């Protein structure tokens, strides 16, 4: 059943995330048993990206090149194509509905009807300069019978589909795509980073229970709500770790780089009595005496920002009506997951259990899989693997704009 020629032809799946703090390339391989293994990682500090979007293409290109070449060395392969993660404050997600009457004589729903209804759902009113990154089918319903996963073969008069559409500015996506294409690499597909992280972290069971994945990146914070097995809500808040560092830099009057270090060494997501009166005197590079830094202020500034970020996300999710459907809890990934007591803060704000996001259902370099920062890149590889399998199964190379995460997993496992 498994097509070995496919493996020979396209053995590699590479996820490339051009992040604000780092550029990360993750190389995955589908082995003979059909399981996905991570065989290499390349990363490079990122300089040309702010808030998840490329602002200095020349610098970004250098960093991407460095990350990719490291990945090639580490996996000992040649990278020809990548799955590119995209993000930024301009990316928005919303739910839409499409309707299609079934006109065939026997009223049996066929593949064509499904494609038509999806096309109807995609004919949506988004701004002209926006591009649809994902249109994810959530559920079908046939003649008011809800929650149907696959309507093909059913009998009915009217087919409806609910879709989650993620779109953003075409030009901004093109910046990243052009940068990668300029290196003579092919972009297989672009993937919303938040979705990739969720794919990397959540198990099918957690998706069914309902889960909120928050990717606390350096430039932007992406959040994705899964409920009843499908994506229900996505969003990006262009506030991230950089903002925390900048706040600290301003509040404590230290350089940004120092603020960055202080954040992890002495920071805390929760400001309480334990921080009262604490100070820290860092050693001076030149051996001169340094003024002591007030840890109390550091934690106050930091916790205010992090709390605000969570509160905004909570507000958004609550307004969309999904907060009480998250029985699986909140999953935190991205560099922000390293901040001490961040899970406790999330538990307080969301009033839900919070967990660190660990990549699942994948084997390979243990060092990569444990890090919260890599969940997006791993998710990209997973996404790519799902797409590759799907293409292979259907024997079609056209871009499948709609896919069901559940299906990808059933294909993978």
């Amino acid at each position, binding site marked *: 059943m498994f097509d070995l020629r496919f493996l020979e032809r396209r053995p590699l799946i590479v996820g490339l995330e051009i992040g604000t703090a780092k550029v990360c390339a993750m190389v995955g391989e589908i082995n003979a048993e059909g399981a996905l293994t991570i065989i290499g990682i390349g990363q490079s500090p990122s300089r040309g990206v702010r808030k998840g979007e490329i*602002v200095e293409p020349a610098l970004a290109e250098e960093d991407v090149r460095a990350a990719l070449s490291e990945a090639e060395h580490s996996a000992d392969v040649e990278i020809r194509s990548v799955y590119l993660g995209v993000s930024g404050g301009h990316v928005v997600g919303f739910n839409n509905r499409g309707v299609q009457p079934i006109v065939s004589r026997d009223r049996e729903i066929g593949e064509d009807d499904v494609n038509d209804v999806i096309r109807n759902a995609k004919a949506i009113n988004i701004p002209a300069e926006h591009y649809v990154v994902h249109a994810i089918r959530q559920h079908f319903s046939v003649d008011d019978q809800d929650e149907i996963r696959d309507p093909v073969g059913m009998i009915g008069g009217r087919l409806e589909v609910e879709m989650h559409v993620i779109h953003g500015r075409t030009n901004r996506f093109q910046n990243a795509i052009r940068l990668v294409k300029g290196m003579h690499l092919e972009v297989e597909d672009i993937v919303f980073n938040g979705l990739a992280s969720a794919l990397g972290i959540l198990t099918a069971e957690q998706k069914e229970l309902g889960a909120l994945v928050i990717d606390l990146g350096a430039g932007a914070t992406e959040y994705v709500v899964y409920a009843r097995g499908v994506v229900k809500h996505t969003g990006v808040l262009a506030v991230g770790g950089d903002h925390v560092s*900048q*706040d600290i830099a301003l509040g404590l009057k230290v350089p940004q780089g120092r603020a960055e270090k202080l954040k992890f060494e002495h920071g805390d997501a929760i400001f309480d009595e334990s921080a009262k009166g604490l100070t820290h005197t860092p050693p001076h590079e030149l051996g001169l005496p340094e003024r002591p830094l007030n840890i109390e202020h550091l934690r106050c500034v930091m916790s205010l920002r992090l709390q605000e970020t969570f509160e905004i996300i909570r507000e958004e999710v609550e307004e969309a009506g999904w907060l009480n459907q998250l029985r699986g809890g909140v999953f935190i990934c991205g560099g922000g997951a390293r901040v001490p007591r961040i899970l406790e803060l999330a538990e307080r704000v969301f009033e839900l259990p919070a967990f660190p996001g660990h990549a699942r259902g994948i084997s390979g370099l243990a060092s990569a899989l444990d890090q919260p920062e890599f969940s997006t890149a791993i998710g990209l590889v997973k996404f790519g693997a799902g797409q590759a399998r799907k293409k292979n199964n259907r024997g079609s190379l056209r871009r499948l704009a709609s896919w069901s995460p559940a299906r990808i997993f059933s294909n993978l496992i």
Partner: protein
Amino acid sequence: MSSQPSAGASANFAPPFRASGARVIAIGRAGAEIAAALQETGTTGFTYAVVDSDGSAIESTAFPEKLFVGARLTRGFGAGGDPELARTAADEETPAIRGLCQGYPLIFIVAGLGGGSGTGIAPVVARIARETGASVFAFVTAPFDCEGTRRQQQALLGLHRLKTVADGVLCLPNEKLLLLSDDRTTLVDAFRSGREHLRDAVLCIWGLLTRPGLLGVSFADICSVLRGPNQESAFARVMVSGPDRSDRAMAALLNHPLLTHGDTLRRAESLLVSFRAGHDLGMGEIRRIMDELTSKSDGARVVVGAEIRDQADTELTISVMASTRQMVLHEPVENPVADRSSNLLAADNLPARDVESGPARTARRLAPPAPNLTPELADQLLSQSPGGRRSGRKKPQQVPLPFEVVTKGRFEKCEPTVRRGNNLDQPTYLRRGIILN
């Protein structure tokens, strides 16, 4: 509130303000006079103390608790209008000032800014008071314009220092009082009117904090209006009685010079409105006035308090505290070229201009390097000041710099993250006006 700094802790004491009373610390001569005006009202609950750097002035005040700072530095002759001197003198007396503040959860600082003592000492006292865990409100006057720009500058600096350390600052620019008076107003009356306004403001806050009103106003509500280095607060109080008093009150408020004839209301970010009247205060009256006020100040956060007095009089007192956001933090500049032309280039050294006026320009001793201007930019600049050159050289003007310059830092090159009118690129603690000290 769990993440609030020390102010949060002191807010726990908010209810017993009444029992513990408030400490009024008067600073400088102006402060002592305001305190005297306060004392005259006979309000209970205040304990007064005076801090001054002028030995003879402090001798002449009637208050029992006095602290003379600067025995060494000024030899008792006062700071002579030098805030730095007064500040140093106050710093030396830190333990004594702490002694004055100890044991009072609420401290009111009254002072006149612009001179030496008030400007220099008030921020020091506010800082020390906050260190003892007290909540600090400062009520200050700013000098008349005719007192000279130096005093104005000093007052602004002192005000800014005060704002960064106190829980709330209410500043009354004396200049605005002139609008209340006419040419025949005597000097004594003018200053008295300023004192009385500040006195009313203190009494208003004190009343809100201690007298349980019908519509209660909490400590946090008051802080939200007065707190933060970004806020510029204004206070106005009108008293009316008789028939259709609500209409007349409204008209008086909208024309109130301290609210710059309603302009402050339009720009207000938060409003605190407190009603005080006898039992006959009608819901309709409150609603009418509040409707009017909220429609004038669109989008502002509004806190309403009402207090019913036992006396059966028909007088209605409305106090309005409005805070407007003064600091504009890296708002997107609509036309950066226009901005640069007015500030940096000062229409003085454009390369395109030499073409126009010929090469016979006298060389400056210090010639700044020619700015990198594309022809389009230069054209744009030129078109912005038509004829400006021919009508003689414009004197470059030194524009006042904004108080708190918050750089965009890392986010210089990207669009600001704005959500519901808040620029999230600004630090949360600054936006919420939380004081780090």
